[in-house]
C-alpha cells in the first residue's frame, strides 16, 4: 500500500486547483467492474456499509446491489455521520477492522481518514470517465456519492403556507416559540455541515437566539422531517430536504422551504477502507454505487442530487441551479467541528 501524507495546505491547494479545473493528472488507474472482481467479491460473500443516509434509502441501495450481484449480502450500519466517525475511530484505534466502506454526510471526515492513512485508493472507471473532477479525490480515496440540502420545512396542517417562515431570520419570530424541531451537529454530519455554514453566514448570535425559541432537539437530520410528518412540530429549523420530498410524495402534509439567505449544501462522499475485511466486495460496491444505475436510484427513489452527468432528473425536486446555495467547505468544517460541538452544547444545553 502507498502511504500518502498531505498537509492541510496541500489539500487546500489541491482542491482549489481541482475546482479551477486545471488539475487533470491522476495518481491511480481507474478500474472497471470486471468478472474477476465480481467473482472475488462473491467469494467474500458480504460487505459492511457504514452510512448516514436515511435507513430505508441505504437498505434500498443494499437490496439493489444484492439483486445485481447475487451471493453478496450488504450489511448497512446506519448512524449519524458524527457517530459513524466516532465509531470508526474507536474501532480502528482498537485494532478492530469491521468497516468495508463508509458514506458520510460530513465530507471533512475523509480529510481526517486520508490523513490517518486509513483509506484505500480506488477509482471506479465510470467516475474517472464521466464525473466532474471536483467530485472525486484524484488519488481515488473518495467519490461524491450524493448531494442534498439542509432546508427548512413545515407541516401544512399546522402552518398555513402564507404564514410559513421564508428565511432563517423568520425562525426567530416569537410565534415559533416551542413549535420547531432540529437535528444535532454532534450526531449528524448534515447538521454539522449546515451549522458550519450557518455560523459562517449568519454568525453564532443567530443560533443563540434560536436556542431561546425552545426548539425540540432530535439527533439525526432524518428525524426533523419525520417529526413534521407526525405533526409533532410545525416547523423544521434544519434537516434533510430529501426526506421531506419523499414524505410529501407519499402524501404526508409537509413542505420544503429553501431559506432566502441561502441553503446549506451537503455533499456525501464514499470511500473504501484500507483494512476492509471484504476488500473486493467493498470495491465492487464502491464501483457499483457510482454507476448510472445506482445514481439513477439516488435521484428516483432517494430524491437527492447526483453528480453523474448522465442521470435523468425526476420532476418534484427543485434544480440546484434554481436555489440560492451556500458553499460547502469540508476543510473549514474539519477545522471548526470541535468548536462547533462544544459551543452548540453550551448554547442548546444538550
Amino acid at each position, binding site marked *: 500500500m502507498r502511504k500518502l501524507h498531505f498537509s492541510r495546505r496541500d489539500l487546500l491547494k489541491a482542491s482549489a486547483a481541482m475546482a479551477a479545473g486545471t488539475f487533470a493528472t491522476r495518481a491511480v488507474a481507474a478500474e472497471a467492474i470486471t468478472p474477476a472482481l465480481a467473482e472475488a467479491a462473491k467469494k467474500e460473500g458480504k460487505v459492511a456499509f457504514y452510512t448516514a443516509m436515511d435507513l430505508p434509502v441505504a437498505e434500498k441501495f443494499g437490496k439493489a446491489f444484492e439483486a445485481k450481484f447475487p451471493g453478496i449480502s450488504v450489511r448497512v450500519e446506519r448512524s449519524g455521520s458524527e457517530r459513524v466517525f466516532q465509531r470508526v475511530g474507536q474501532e480502528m484505534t482498537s485494532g478492530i477492522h469491521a468497516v468495508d466502506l463508509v458514506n458520510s454526510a460530513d465530507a471533512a471526515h475523509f480529510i481526517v481518514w486520508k490523513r490517518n492513512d486509513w483509506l484505500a485508493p480506488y477509482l471506479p472507471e465510470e467516475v474517472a470517465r464521466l464525473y466532474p473532477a471536483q467530485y472525486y479525490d484524484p488519488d481515488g480515496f473518495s467519490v461524491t456519492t450524493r448531494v442534498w440540502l439542509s432546508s427548512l420545512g413545515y407541516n401544512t396542517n399546522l402552518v398555513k403556507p402564507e404564514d410559513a417562515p421564508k428565511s432563517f431570520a423568520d425562525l426567530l419570530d416569537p410565534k415559533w416559540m416551542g413549535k420547531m424541531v432540529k437535528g444535532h451537529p454532534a450526531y449528524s454530519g448534515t447538521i454539522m455541515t449546515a451549522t458550519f455554514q450557518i455560523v459562517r453566514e449568519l454568525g453564532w448570535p443567530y443560533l443563540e437566539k434560536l436556542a431561546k425559541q425552545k426548539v425540540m*432537539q432530535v439527533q439525526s437530520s432524518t428525524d426533523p422531517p419525520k417529526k413534521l410528518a407526525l405533526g409533532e412540530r410545525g416547523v423544521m429549523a434544519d434537516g434533510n430536504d430529501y426526506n421531506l420530498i419523499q414524505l410529501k410524495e407519499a402524501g404526508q402534509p409537509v413542505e420544503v422551504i429553501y431559506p432566502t439567505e441561502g441553503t446549506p449544501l451537503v455533499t456525501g462522499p464514499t470511500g473504501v477502507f484500507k483494512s476492509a475485511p471484504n476488500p473486493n466486495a467493498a470495491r465492487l460496491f464502491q464501483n457499483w454505487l457510482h454507476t448510472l444505475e445506482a445514481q439513477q436510484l439516488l435521484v428516483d427513489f432517494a430524491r437527492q442530487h447526483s453528480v453523474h452527468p448522465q442521470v435523468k432528473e425526476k420532476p418534484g425536486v427543485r434544480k440546484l441551479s434554481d436555489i440560492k446555495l451556500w458553499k460547502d467547505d469540508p476543510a473549514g468544517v474539519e477545522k471548526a467541528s470541535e468548536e462547533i460541538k462544544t459551543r452548540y452544547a453550551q448554547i442548546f444545553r444538550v
Partner: protein
Amino acid sequence: MTIALPAAAAPPKHKLDLSWPILILFAAVLCVLIILPMSWLLYYSLVDRTGAFTLANFKTLVTDPVFIDPLVTTLILAVSSSIICCLAAAPMGWLVARTDMPLRRTVRALVTASFVTPPFLGAIAWELLAAPNSGLLNKTFRAVTGAPQDEHLFNIYSLGGLIFVISCYTFPYVFVLVANALDRIPGDLEDASAILGGRTWTTARRVTVPLAMPALVAGALVAFLQAMTLFGSPAILAIPAGFHTMTTKIWSLFNYPPKPELAAAASIPLLILTVLLLRAEHFILGRRGYSVVGGKQGNPRLIKLEGLKWAALAFVFIVLMCPVFLPYGALLNATFSHVATSFVWFDNFTLHNIYFVFYELSATKLAVKNTFLLGAASATIGTVIALVIAYLTSRRAIAGYRALGFLATAPVAIPGIVLGVGLFLSYARPPLVLYGTLWILLIAFITIALPAAYQQLQSAFRSVHTDIEDASRILGATRLRTLWRITAPLLRTSVIATWCFIFVGVIRELSAAIMLFTSETKVISVLIFDLNESGDLGAISVLGLIMLVITFAVVIAVNRIPGFGETRLRNA
C-alpha cells in the same frame, strides 16, 4: 443397599484440598468482572491526557454547570420517582397480599409484565402516546374537547414526563418488596391483635403497616437507585426537551472527541451514591429480618374490602394502564401504521413496517442472533457461577466463603453505564483487547446479572434443609452424589428460573451495551436505540414487539419467576 459409615469421615480432607484452588479460581473470575474495570475507572478519573496525576477532572465536575445541572436534575428525578413508586406500589402490594380484591393473581402477572418491559421501549411507546402534539392521548384529548391544536394534556418531553415514565417501569421493584414482606408477615401477629380487641383497621394500622415499613423504605431506596442509573429513558426523553441527566452526560462524553477521563470522573459520584444507598438498604432490610422471626407461617388473614373491592381493582388497573396497556397498545398501533402516531383503521392499515424489519433491515438478523447468543451464554455461565458460589457460601464449604459472597454481590453497586465505561477502558487496550467481540458484552451481562442470580440461588439453597443432604450422606452417598441426586432435583425450579431471569435481563439491557457494542456486536436494544435517533418509529415498534414476545415466551415457559422478591433486575 450398603451402609458405609466411614465415607462420612473422608470429605473433610477432600474439602481442604479443593478449597483453595476453588476460592482462587472464583475470586479471580470475580476480579476480572469487577475489580479490574473499577480500577481502570478510578485511574482514568485521576489522570489527564498525558497520564499525569491530576484532580482537574473532579474540579471540572464540581465547577462546570455543564455537569452540575445534570447532577441536580438526576437527584430531583431519583427522589421524585422513588416517591411516586411508593405511592403507587405500596397500596397495590397491600391490596394484592392482604385483601380479598378480585383478580389478585392477574395483577401480579401484570406487574411482572411491566417489570420485564425494557424501560427504553416503554419510553418510546410513551413518546407515541404523550408527545405534546402528535401523541395519541393528546390527539384524543383535542378530538374530545375540541381544544385548539397547540393545547395538550401531557408533555412527555419534560422532567415531569421523564419522572412519570421512569416510575412506570420502576414501581414493580417496590411492589414486589412490599407484597413479599406482607406475604411473609404471619397471620398469628394479626390474630393476637384481634384477640386483644383491635379491629380490622386498627390491626392494619398498628401491626401490618409497621411490619411492612422497612420493606417499603428499602423499596424506595431501590427505586431511587434505578431512577438514578437509568440510561435509555432519559436519552430518549430528556435530550429532546433540552436537558441531560448524569447517565446521558457520561455517554455524551464519548462523542468525538472522546473524553474518557471526564466520563470516568463523572461516573464516580454515581458509584459512591449507589454504595452508600445500598449500605442504607442493607441496614434497613437487616432489621426487617428480626421483625418477623418467631412467628410460625400461619396464613395471612385477608381483609374483606366489601363494597370497596371494585374501587380497589379500578385503582390497580388505572396504575397498570401506564406501564402495560397503553404502551403496548401504542406499539401495536404503530406497527400497522404508516405514520406512527395516527390511529390505525381498515383504510390505513399497512404491513410495510413488518416487511421492512424482516426483509429490508439488514441489521435485524445479526442483532437478533447476537441477542440470543449473549442471552443464552450469559444465562448459562451466570447461573453456573452463581450456583457454585451460592453452594459454597450457603453450605460454608470452603474457607473464605464470605469473601466470595461479598464479591458476587458487589456488582449491584455498579450502575450499568459505569460498568460499561470501566469495561471499555479495561478491554479496549492491550494486553487483552476484548472490545469489538461478544466477550466484552458477555462479561458485562454476567457481571450485571450475578448479584441477583446469586441471591436467588442462595435463598434456594437455604430453603433446602441440610438434614436431607445429611441423610443422604449418612446413607453412604458422596458429596457429589448427594448434590446430584438430592440437592439438584430440589433446586431445579430455582435454577431454571435464574436462567430465565438472566436471559430476560440481557434482552432488556441497554446502558452497558451502549458503551460496549461495535457494528458487528450490536444487540436488539442498541438497534432500537439507533432507530430512535433517526426517527424510524415503525421499525422500532416491530422490533419492540419481537422483544416482548421473546421475553414473555421465556417468562411463561417457567410460568413465573420464583424468588422474585429477593432479586433485582438491573436497569436498561
